[in-house]
């Protein structure tokens, strides 16, 4: 019967569409991340290989022009999540720099507990747009950090704000939120 056959073909096609759309929902995650990188939706992450980092491994700082004509204030915000007992703060609350200038700042982290713990810092920027122009040469947020009992450590961030930063951005806030990485997910 030709109707039965064409029904089957149609059901197969529609079923295929369902699976394509299911796949699409998972594909939305990398799509979303790349839309964020392009600054369309929100800018949180840059490096796809390392979802925790915002680093551009190819930052070439040697021949970057320093734009001496203007100042940018960079504020450092540190948050330790509630469930994370570490003490975490920026040594300087803010610095004033010229775009193009390489800058080094320190965050202080203390593990007040009596056990070894692993933490991961998640970065975020405000305005979100600034992430595109904020390039980190080195950052403790690239990897998970392990602190022994009662250990304290100064953790560096080395960064450059690129000179093509839009003129109307005069303040950038760089925020890190430290979360505990449970041993289960670390393994």
């Amino acid at each position, binding site marked *: 019967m030709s109707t039965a056959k064409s029904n089957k073909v149609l059901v197969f096609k529609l079923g295929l569409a369902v699976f394509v759309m299911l796949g699409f929902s998972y594909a939305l995650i990398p799509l979303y991340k790349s839309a964020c990188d392009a600054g369309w939706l929100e800018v949180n992450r840059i490096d796809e290989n390392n979802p925790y980092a915002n680093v551009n491994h190819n930052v070439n700082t040697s021949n970057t022009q320093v734009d001496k004509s203007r100042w940018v204030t960079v504020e450092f*915000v540190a948050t330790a999540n*509630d*469930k994370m007992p570490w003490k975490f703060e920026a040594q300087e609350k803010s610095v004033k720099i010229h775009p193009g200038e390489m800058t080094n700042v320190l965050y202080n982290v203390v593990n007040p507990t009596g056990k070894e713990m692993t933490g991961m810092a998640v970065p975020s920027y405000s305005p979100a747009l600034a992430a595109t122009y904020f390039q980190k040469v080195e950052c403790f947020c690239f990897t998970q950090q392990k602190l022994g009992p009662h250990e304290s450590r100064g953790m560096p961030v080395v960064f450059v704000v690129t000179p093509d930063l839009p003129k109307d951005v005069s303040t950038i806030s760089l925020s890190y939120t430290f979360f505990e990485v449970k041993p289960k997910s670390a393994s």
Partner: protein
Amino acid sequence: MMSSLIKKIGGGLVMAMISLFAHAEHQINFPAPVTEIGRQVYDLHIITMWIIVGIAVVVYGAMFWSLLKHRKSVGYKPATFSHSTALEIIWTTIPFIILIAMAYPATKSVIAMKDTSNADMTVKVTGYQWKWEYDYQQDGFKFMSVLSTPRDQIEGKEAKGADYLLEVDNPMVVPVNKKVRVLLTANDVIHAWWMPEFGVKQDAIPGFIRDTWFKVEKPGTYRGQCAELCGKDHGFMPIVVVAKEQADYDKWVAEQKAKAAAAADTGKDRSKEELVAAGEKIYAANCAGCHQPHGEGMPPVFPALAGSKIVNGPAAGQIDIVMNGKPGTAMPAFAKQMSDGDVAAVITFTRNSWGNKAGDVVQASEIKASRK
């Protein structure tokens, strides 16, 4: 039970009728804005409403005319037309043009709202379940802001105050005519910081920061609420902003700095009575939401404190839970939210109330020691 229910409904009905006729005026528009952005939003809404009223008059006018005249009961003979290309083109293009006219001012406002540059000061605001923390990073102090409406008012045991559910213990304070940038994040779930008079609403997202800004033009006290469902007490975490003249604001900042310095000093031991009295207030603000005013809890989700093994056991166990929270439950870690003195007071209070017989006293110095 049933009769009290009927009484409540009946009483309410009578009150409804009285109040509907008694109040001549109700708030039927946005509250009067006190910022430039607020004013833009207000005006944009008014313009849109007038355009809509215009369209509505045409649409409903045609509809009611047709309903009155073109009915079988008045002997109207039906026409037979079923399309008109000219008409269809007209009513596709005209709305299009109206929409463009509306989009233009809206676009300008969007750009202005998003411009957080050149702020005079920055305050970091963190949403917690269910309170707000205001962190004046540049001045080096921060504080929690918690609903201050007594539970008795909420439960109808005493008359409701004028600012019922819109009052907090420590309001956010800002200077007038200064561009204040608000950096928002959250600790646990998504919250939203909404201040209607400023035309500001921004979600606070755990792990990320978002920003927004306002510049208040008039000194005063402004009240808003959390706007994103954030769990049980979503309706009980208001936002209060007090805008002050610069001189008053500076005075307030100096006071806050002094307070912060005092809090860092755990000082000398307090008596049991002092601790219990202080602890009762802290308990009502921070704990009673889940563990209930008399420590009866709401098992199985929120355990009872009255008669609890932990509360009646060694103090160290209770200190650990209060300071570090209990993973996998709603119990947060209070180590970073409360001073040593407050933790000591609230623990002492719970250990000596509702029939709990631990009887001992926990001092701020012990809490300080536990942080090491």
